[in-house]
């Protein structure tokens, strides 16, 4: 019994790890393809059919590159930086419910590594630790551009974490739980038997705030000031080369994948799809279809991240801070207030 549990969890962990890395690797490819298509170009098409092996080629190149550690850098912290960035990026996948329950031979297997009753706070904590990777790396490089990038990153992430947390609080008020799995299950059915809607209908303002903050937390355009090429050479990873640089870049894509997953769970029903309980399918089929739908949602949001990136130019730093502190945080507080008010008025 205990061994079968262990095997099932091990398989799940390895699968989630592999899928996360796979999606991240192909996000780099997708990014370049999407950028090309949005600019009437072709994108990478030399390595394999349609350039499908481009991520492998990139990875190989990164590994073969010379590894340079600056003489004046703090060696230990210099290596620690990208490690933390990658570690925290991968850690968030633990609490994501990738699907509902599979029933095999009378035993039920949940497609989630660990069910925490405070899942969303866990994601939040991991994200807040993630900034250390950038800060430590930027500081240890002993380079003013890296340091400026690191400082920008930390200030930006702290500012937007607040608005993000506040937007989640409004969502938690409506759902009444902090568990990602329960939040998913509460949105089951969609338009159909139970008349449950996706949370985005109840929390449109919260969704927009969360989305903007997710962009800022992932350091994606228009909030990619920490690695602003025009001002800071490469930002916090100016001094990095070879696989350590790859880890930083990779962590960004893993973060994007995880935040797409979190957005889908919180506001777009996670592994639920419309009419799921009306088609008369059995439990396992629904679960597998649900996982497929979940990944479709994630793919859409990853595409959305890229779409925005190739549409909007970068913010100026004061605009970024103004948006975070003077627009999003008051808006989120008002959102909490109104949500609470509505909850009190309707609960009677």
């Amino acid at each position: 019994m205990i061994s079968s549990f262990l095997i099932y969890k091990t398989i799940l962990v390895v699968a989630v790890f592999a899928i996360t890395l796979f999606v991240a690797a192909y996000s780099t490819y997708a990014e370049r393809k999407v950028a090309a298509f949005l600019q009437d170009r072709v994108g990478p098409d030399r390595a394999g059919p349609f350039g499908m092996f481009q991520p492998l080629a990139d990875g190989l190149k990164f590994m073969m590159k010379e590894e340079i550690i600056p003489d004046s850098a703090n060696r230990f912290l210099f290596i620690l930086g990208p490690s933390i960035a990658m570690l925290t990026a991968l850690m968030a996948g633990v609490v994501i419910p990738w699907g509902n329950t599979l029933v095999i031979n009378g035993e039920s297997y949940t497609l989630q590594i660990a069910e925490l009753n405070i899942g969303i706070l866990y994601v939040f904590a991991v994200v807040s630790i993630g900034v250390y990777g950038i800060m430590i790396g930027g500081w240890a490089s002993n380079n003013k551009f890296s340091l400026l990038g690191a400082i920008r990153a930390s200030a930006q992430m702290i500012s937007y974490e607040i608005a993000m947390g506040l937007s989640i609080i409004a969502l938690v008020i409506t759902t009444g739980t902090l568990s990602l799995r329960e939040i998913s299950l509460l949105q089951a059915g969609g338009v159909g038997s139970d008349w449950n809607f996706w949370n985005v209908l109840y929390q449109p303002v919260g969704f927009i705030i969360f989305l903007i903050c997710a962009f800022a937390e992932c350091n994606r355009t228009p909030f990619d000031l920490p690695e602003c090429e025009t001002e800071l050479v490469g930002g916090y990873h100016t001094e990095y080369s070879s696989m350590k640089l790859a880890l930083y870049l990779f962590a960004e894509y893993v973060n994007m994948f995880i935040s797409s997953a979190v957005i889908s769970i919180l506001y777009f029903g996670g592994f639920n799809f419309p009419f799921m309980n009306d088609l008369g399918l059995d439990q396992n089929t629904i679960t597998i279809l649900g996982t497929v739908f979940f990944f479709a949602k994630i793919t859409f949001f990853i595409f959305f991240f890229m779409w925005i990136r190739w549409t909007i130019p970068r913010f100026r730093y004061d605009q970024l801070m103004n948006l975070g502190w003077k627009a999003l945080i008051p808006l989120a507080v008002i959102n909490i207030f109104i949500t609470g008010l509505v909850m009190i008025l309707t609960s009677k």
Partner: protein
Amino acid sequence: MPTLNLFYFLSFVAVLSALLVVFSKNPMHSVLYLIITFFAIGGHYLLMNAEFLFVVHIIVYAGAIMVLFLYVIMLLNLNQESEPHKSTVLKFAATICGGLLLLILVAAFKGADQLPAAATEHTVGYVKSLGMVLFTEYLLPFEITSVLLLAAMVGAVMLGKPERLNKG
């Protein structure tokens, strides 16, 4: 038994890194050791089934406050030469203050074994039970704390306000 071993391990890490915070020459390293200390203490919360406290501890202390610490230290670029020399009187005063704090802490924890057994219940870390306790039994301290934070916030805004150029 593994819980007890884990407790000893976490305590060892916490105490060791706390000592390193004090003794390391580089302020940057001090901050990083402090973060490790926070994680070890967070581990203790987990051992007591207080998941919520653990996560909030990580978010608030490790994720926000220590980032600001790091931020300031990065900007100041502290090193040993530029560190201001502290006078003997100041050191003496600091020793006395630290000693007093230790005394208070020891006095406070002397009665720790008289804590009600309910505190170690399994549901102690759950958000619902915590919220219930916080907003009924400990409402007054909670509100006082929030007023304190508000005062600190107002103070920070006052300090951060740009001085008027035409003043004086």
